[in-house]
């Protein structure tokens, strides 16, 4: 998942606060496609850190 995140953002991030609102949408779209899920943007922005986002797609 870290690799996919890097692929989407084209840079490394260590905290969720480094991700802009539009990037959050890109992450949601890409992760939903790859993991075949329908996680909404409000589920993702509720995450306190990156691991919680990964948990959504486990």
């Amino acid at each position: 998942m870290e690799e996919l995140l890097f692929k989407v953002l084209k840079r490394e991030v260590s905290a969720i606060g480094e991700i802009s609102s539009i990037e959050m949408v890109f992450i949601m779209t890409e992760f939903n496609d790859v993991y075949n899920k329908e996680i909404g943007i409000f589920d993702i922005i509720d995450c306190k850190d990156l691991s919680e986002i990964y948990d959504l797609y486990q």
Partner: protein
Amino acid sequence: MIYISKSININDRIAIGGLDCIMDKLKSRKYPDVDYYIYTLDDSFCVVGVISFNGSNCIIDLHNTNVKASIFFNWLRESLSKYDDFYCVPNNEGKFVWQALGLKQKSLYLKFSTKKIFRRKLKARYLKFLFLNMFFEVCTEKTILKLKKNIYYKGELPVRVELDTF
């Protein structure tokens, strides 16, 4: 009308370029009936502008400078919650925001029409398009003139697609 949330004193709280920086983002403030919603906190702010055309609410400005994603999306949802329905024709990046908020989308087309000539005042943007846009209306019915942009809407398509840029 401009609605500001979070800031107590807007001039004291905005660190990046002051109030002018925000005002520059209000591209459509020349229209008297645009409702602008602004969120500011320290060195960040976001803006959304809504104008009512013939009973339909059109989002004409959306901008985010450094506001955290969670705050931005919750603020945007809350700001727009007072509108039963709304639509927008966003630029390439803006469309992702509306897709994420679950708005429906439809392709846009141009159709020949002479209505603008009779019902509207002459506007500066007509000059920009060499007055060709006076003879066309934006619509969702399929024609041979397909636009590159899509319309995003919450509930129902507006009866007439009015754009402040065309």
